[in-house]
């Protein structure tokens, strides 16, 4: 089936407004995964994360802009925090969700937020509350079919929104670097590539690093960023960082956006200069 056909089917079969696509997708995946092998510690903790994310968004957006905004993005951040944070306590879920949303309003560069909100929230929790919370890494089922379904749904969705190249570049780079790490450390190649088959990477590679708001626009740039994340991750992994992909995105993501802006500015400046020169002529 061609991409046009898939898109057509999706568009003609069920019409989903663009802003609700991501919330529906992540809710569907969460429900499927939870019903098939119970990935959530509790609905209450998930609900806590969603409530704090949406409430923070509601209050901060209103305070900053004076308007109310659609809460679908906050819902996605809340649900992501609910899945990714692992703690027997409730407050880390609330804190991660609130930090994720608040980071969008504080850490800004030329009018856009620099960090993927959930990525920032998760990294913050690892640093400030590691004795009370962890992040999904080894907890979840290892069911092969469930894994295939999540990858398939995720990849088709990325194809539809033109972000498939990011994930594919990252996966390919990760596998190559897994081989390099295996060669360097002497650990089995399968051990090095194993994380890619786990749940943390499904969420990371399919949803977090492809977030349209915090990825660069050019396809070449996206591929370069995905490759850079995998490369930095390799060095972090050689230093035994358990949450290496989150740290790599945390570092590379904002730098990439700033570089993209600089290039864009330079182009604009170049254009203005040539227009000025032409007008002088």
């Amino acid at each position, binding site marked *: 089936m061609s991409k046009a056909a898939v898109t057509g089917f999706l568009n003609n079969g069920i019409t989903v407004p663009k802003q609700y696509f991501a919330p529906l997708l992540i809710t569907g995946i969460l429900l499927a995964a939870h019903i098939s092998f119970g990935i959530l510690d509790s609905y209450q903790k998930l609900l806590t994360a969603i409530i704090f994310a949406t409430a923070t968004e509601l209050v901060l957006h209103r305070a900053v802009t004076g308007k109310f905004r659609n809460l679908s993005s906050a819902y996605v951040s809340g649900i992501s925090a609910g899945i990714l944070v692992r703690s*027997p306590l409730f407050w880390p879920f609330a804190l991660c969700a609130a*930090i994720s949303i608040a980071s969008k309003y504080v850490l800004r560069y030329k009018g856009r937020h620099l960090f993927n909100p959930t990525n920032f929230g998760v990294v913050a929790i690892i640093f400030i509350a590691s004795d009370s919370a962890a992040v999904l890494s080894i*907890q979840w089922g*290892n069911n092969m079919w469930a894994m295939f379904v999540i990858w398939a749904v995720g990849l088709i969705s990325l194809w539809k929104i033109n972000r498939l190249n990011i994930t594919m570049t990252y996966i390919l780079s990760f596998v190559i670097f897994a081989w390099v790490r295996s060669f360097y450390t002497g650990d089995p190649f399968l051990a090095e590539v194993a994380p890619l*088959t*786990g749940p943390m990477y499904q969420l990371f590679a399919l949803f977090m690093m492809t977030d349209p708001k915090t990825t660069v626009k050019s396809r070449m740039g996206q591929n370069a960023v995905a490759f850079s994340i995998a490369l930095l991750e390799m060095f972090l992994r050689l230093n035994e960082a358990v949450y290496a992909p989150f740290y790599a995105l945390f570092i590379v993501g904002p730098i990439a956006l700033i570089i993209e802006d600089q290039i864009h500015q330079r182009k604009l400046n170049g254009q203005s200069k040539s227009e000025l020169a032409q007008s002088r002529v």
Partner: protein
Amino acid sequence: MNKQRIIQIAVILFFISLLLAPAALKQLESWRAEEIPDNSDEIVERYGFYLDEVSEEIGVTFKHVRPELDSKIEHINDQIASLGASVSVADVDNNGYPDFYLTNSEYGTANALYINQGDGTFVDQAAEMGVADVNREGTGVSMGSVWGDINNDGFEDLVVYKWGRQELFLNDSAGQFTRITETAGLPDWMNANTAVWLDYDNDGNLDLFLGGYYHEDIDFWNLTTTRIMPDSYEYATNGGRNYLLKNNGDNTFTDVTEETGLLEIRMWTLASSSADLNGSGYSDLVLANDYGVDELYINQNGERFINAGESAGIGFIPKSGMSVSLGDVMNQGQLSIYITNISEAGVLMQGNNLWVPSRRSSGDELEFQNLAGNLGVEIGQWGYSGKLLDLNNDGNLDIYVANGFVSDEPNTDYWYDYTKVVGGNRNVIIDANNWPAMNGRTFSGYQSNKIWMNDGAGRFREVSSAVGGALDLDSRSIAAADLDQNGSLDLIVANQNGPVKVYQNRVSDANNWISFKLEGTASNRSAIGATVRLIWDDMQNIKEVSGGDAFSSQSQRAVHFGLEEKQSIDRVEIRWPSGAVQTIENPEINTKHRITEPQGA
């Protein structure tokens, strides 16, 4: 300053305050922490008890040795061979003083049976009594032991469960044990890490539950495959087989696992405990499973067990269950369940579970809620064992948690490599060949044991650094017994690949106590499964005579109650496994009562 600027600053301050919140909470806790007194008398005055480590002083010098397994798994030998240190208590010679048995786990090493001399010292008489030499090459090595009078002759017999062939010894009452392994009908080979005695059908003979961890096809010294690891970190389905063995009354056992409904799933069972949780008069089973959910099996009139884990609320979230301890934490006449799991900062935060019967819980439908977080006993570390016991005789159950997995080279860590593999697909995780070599690295090692003291008002506080007992060996098994018969529960802590530690418990004189040593007649003679209910004013507390609990351990048979400063109690109700109910009015306090089941009751 315009309004927009003020809002911007407020948002930034809000963001910073979120980032600083955990540090602020921690600082608040440290300000609240009490200063620890310098001398132990002041500590006893403040906390009600103090633990003096007296192992060598009383003649206990045993050191556990871990096994060396097949060279195919040499690269991760330290984590696989991380089990086997255990302790079980029994009055072997019926002189009124508790003795204890310790297991060793390398081929050629001896197990120890420390006989209480009654003067505060112990002598290892395992070899003379015939229970030392059980780690012979080709028969597997010891993982634990439990005592129970299987032939109702008044002397405690011994099962040693192993990774290998299970061993059964009859206590012949003359200071000797007779090995009846070959004729008893125990499994030929299994990788057992837990056993508990219970009389599941109340026929007066003790039956035996054995829990398998690794699959029973695995012989760790002659591996035919390296696909021996769990097939999932949270939903593993390839664990060892469990057994329920019915005592035929002639020193033989029959496997009734399947017909009693205990063969439905293959979990990685690490701990088991038994008690009548729903007041039916029959013993139920609680299993703590690694790589999966915990299980609660409700006994159906001594005929079958029904898995009620999910409906009761305890069998839903998969964790790394390692220990089961039962006790009336809320002094409400109902047993709660404490199960330890793993909490490793920044990597894995499972939290321990304290399952307390909810208000809606009834005999027909049990329902528990996890109050570990509310009561402050959730975040342990790598908690191999968690034991509910009243350390200061204040009438409230405290908790001792044995922590630590593999202590090797300091300042090294295997967690990163572990997370790499166990997060992967089942085909990766299941094969030991895919696991990175440990190379002498520490894995959640050098962790201090925790002692959570119950204040009786709904909070526990960690006091191990003040009251002694803050051991940082790789502790596995804990047994409580009044070794010196002075009215306080002393502790024996078995440590993996390390020395056993015995703690004498010095308790405040202000607190009273009472204990009951039961002997069945129509019921099994060990009285395992008998329930003792202490009633005073409008309060009550319940304890059950246990056939083994926590991780690889068995505490003293006598049930011990702290009474705080109470000078009397109204009555004691004893419900025997036979169904007989005995009431004792106004029993004398600060006394050890020996109670025999009334004939023809």
